[in-house]
């Protein structure tokens, strides 16, 4: 006979913790958080730099401090957290198979599930970088764990490929630990990370950022000896003759994060090809009834503050589902959200305007750098919201908030698009 829980939360990082606390505050008491690591807090535990919490708490916290606030919330509420517990699969009717050292292999039936598994880094193999496969190549997050949690500096002469935020943070971190970061190469003509990280982590330390550059060869059979970096053309193809050799013992990769949805696939959940996360409605419900998603498993966020906010909404809506206040199925007022001109994706993918979850938060990323532009949200019934932006970049998530009353009269699909305006 399977065990039962009202709400199962998969992941005890920032998303899972915020979802758990929010569901509790909506009256759900039988909550279980499953965390595969031996402690709560997720990836924040290795993010010992500050800059977290400006939006949520109005102050700058380190990652562990930010996590501690939410761990405290969960503890205060007496929410059951099972650490060292890895969920292996979820059936479409929410039977969860979980394994742990303490309790062995179990099946637990949940009334609702919140997916909060986070994301992983794109490994070297997925980048198709040719060359040898020596010791000394790490994803930036792995290096962050080695330096910050294990107290081990993996190398002294460092090159970083990719300008994702973790890579930028690690450029500074390795420098502070005494390593020499020679360059950060970025395939795209723009940075993959936040502007503030470029300034605070590269510029302040004189670390060059080579835009439109990539690693084309890796030397060293057993230990990394060096990498060759070349400039790329508009299609990302290396330009012959621009190769430059950098002697180094460490190559860090910060080339994108991938939402970790292998579990979601076991539940048959529909995945959005753009975000690599589940397709969700405005209540963050996936295509599987009673299964919600939030945080980096849904789409990769720039700031943990936004993860917490989104996760609280997922927790609230999971609670509403359990208490039977869920959205009616086949409502005539379900509108699709379409990623229009210049927009890569939107979260959510649909909204039920007759049954909203308060304000509609549309989060999206743009395809390119747009200067002096206008973001427009429109439907067949006309323009819903339109706002000017000085600049938008793919590395910074955009959002538009639409008030419930503005949604009432909407007809047809809702399209989010961006247009550059002539200055």
């Amino acid at each position, binding site marked *: 006979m399977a065990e039962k829980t009202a709400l199962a939360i998969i992941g005890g990082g920032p998303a899972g913790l915020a979802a758990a606390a929010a569901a509790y505050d909506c009256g759900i008491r039988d909550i279980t958080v499953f965390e*595969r690591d031996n402690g709560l807090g997720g990836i924040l535990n290795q993010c010992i730099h500050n800059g977290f919490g400006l939006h949520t708490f109005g102050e700058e916290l380190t990652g562990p401090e930010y996590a501690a606030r939410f761990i405290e919330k969960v503890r205060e509420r007496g929410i059951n957290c099972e650490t*060292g517990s*890895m969920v*292996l699969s979820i059936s479409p009717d929410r039977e969860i*198979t979980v*394994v*742990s*050292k*303490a*309790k*062995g*292999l179990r099946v637990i039936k949940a009334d609702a599930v919140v997916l909060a598994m986070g994301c*992983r*880094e794109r*490994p*070297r*193999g*997925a980048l*198709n970088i*040719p*060359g*040898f*496969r*020596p*010791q000394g190549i*790490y*994803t930036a*997050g*792995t290096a962050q*764990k*080695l330096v910050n*949690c*294990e*107290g*081990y500096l993996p190398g002294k002469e460092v090159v970083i490929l990719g300008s994702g935020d973790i890579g930028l943070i690690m450029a500074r971190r390795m420098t502070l630990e005494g390593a020499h970061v020679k360059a950060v190469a970025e395939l795209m003509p723009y940075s993959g990370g936040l502007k503030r990280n470029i300034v605070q982590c590269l510029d302040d330390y004189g670390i060059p950022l080579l835009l439109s550059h990539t690693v*084309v*060869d*890796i030397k060293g*059979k*057993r230990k990394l000896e060096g990498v060759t970096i070349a400039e790329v053309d508009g299609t990302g193809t*290396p330009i012959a003759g621009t190769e430059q050799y950098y002697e180094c013992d460490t190559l860090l990769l910060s080339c994108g994060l991938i939402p970790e949805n*292998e579990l979601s*696939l076991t539940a048959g959940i529909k995945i959005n090809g753009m975000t690599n996360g589940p397709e969700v409605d405005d209540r963050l419900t996936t295509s599987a009834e009673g299964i919600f998603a939030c945080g980096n498993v849904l789409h990769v966020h720039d700031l943990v503050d936004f993860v917490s906010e989104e996760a609280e909404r997922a927790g609230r809506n999971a609670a509403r589902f359990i208490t039977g206040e869920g959205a009616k199925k086949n409502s005539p007022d379900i509108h699709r959200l379409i990623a229009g001109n210049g927009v890569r994706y939107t979260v959510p993918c649909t909204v039920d305007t007759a049954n909203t979850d308060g304000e509609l938060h549309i989060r999206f990323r743009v395809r390119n750098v747009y200067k002096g532009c206008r973001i427009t949200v429109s439907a067949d019934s006309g323009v819903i919201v339109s706002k000017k932006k000085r600049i938008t970049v793919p590395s910074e998530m955009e959002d538009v908030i639409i008030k419930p009353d503005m949604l009432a009269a909407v007809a047809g699909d809702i399209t989010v698009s961006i247009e550059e305006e002539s200055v």
Partner: protein
Amino acid sequence: MKYDAVIIGAGVTGCAAARELSRYELKILVIDRESDVCEGTSKANSAIIHAGFDAEPGTLKAQLNVKGNAMMTALAGELDIPFRRVGAMVVCYEESELPKLGELLSRGERNGVEGLKILGRDEALALEPNLADDVYAALYAPTSGIVCPFEMTLAFAENAYRNGAEFMLSAEVTGIEKTADGFTVNTTKGTVEADCVINCAGVYADKIHDMICEHSFSITPRRGEYLLLDKNAGKTVSRTIFQLPTKMGKGILVSPTAHGNLLLGPTAEDTDDREFTATTREGLDSVKKKSALSVKNIPYGQVITSFSGLRATGSTHDFIIREDDKVKGFIDAAGIESPGLTSAPAIALYIRDIVSGIIPLKEKADFDPVRKGIPKLASMPAEERAELIKQRPDYGQIVCRCEQISEGEILDSIERPLGATTLDGVKRRVRAGMGRCQAGFCSPKVIDMLAEKQGISYGGVKKNG
């Protein structure tokens, strides 16, 4: 220290030979320059148990391929090797190529391959819906299979060890001398004496041969590059799909692996650098382009890693397995290119027969042919898994999340005989770090375990070598 047989090279050939010879009252030593077994060609190949239609009838390759293939089912059971006889197809693209398929079929039949038949487009598609649109016909070989080459090599080594064979790793052979009653083998770790020396040195087999024998063959490493895709792409095909060799060269295969990934490759490029196991942009691009000729819907976005291996291509174009004419007691097992992995069990028997002409062989009373692998919890039925975790709770603590490998399995891989000493060693034994994140999440913990178990510093743990 005097051994009856010293085997140079702990790849699949050397380890299979060691295991076979360990049935007899012999003192055996396997020497390898690397810190682990399976560090050369055996770890970077197509992982196919070939049916045997490819080799020229009458060659040693043809004979040992078919024999080795036939031995695999029993061997996989005895040694607990992941092996599946999934079958293979060789596809062609136009009617004019049909005679070539027919040639392969008759060659296969002459070699003794069973069950070969030509399938029309529709029959082939019924079996493999993702065959490319312009596939015209296919040769079907039901006896072809897929194997885990790491575990196959390790299984031979572990079982040989269990039956008394010794291993000297991280020892490079620097010279071999003939003595009055045998050989002296000099290594970077010291000197050993042997009645007979068996050269299983892969891409260095000619160098080892030339240390004591007259030059009679050479090895040209032939580099092959591969792409490995996520398990989510593993069902793109159910069988190994070969292309008919054309003037443009031997085609690229598309195959599921024994663990459910999808493998594409190899390229074929001769090199004179015996250490050149790097991949190249051109090579990886060509694997993508050519694999798409035979199979459609390959999700190239799901590549998780790429690698390259060196086939030990001999100048005679056949396996060279013989006692040297002049230097009696020195046995070559050289030029072991494809189908070397498939042939390994048969090569071992062939070597045993040669050895029996040098040293009288007496079977051991207590030879144990059975080797039990590390339990694979992720692929176990739930009840069995639950029961095992009750007995060993650390089998419930997942360390490698992508492959669902537990702390207990990793511990086993380090603690067992000939256990892992490096990250790659753990990876080859239990697949921790072999999945889609490529060790991003689990390596700090695995390093920690390796450091603790070996009593070395965190920074002292190596990826390989």
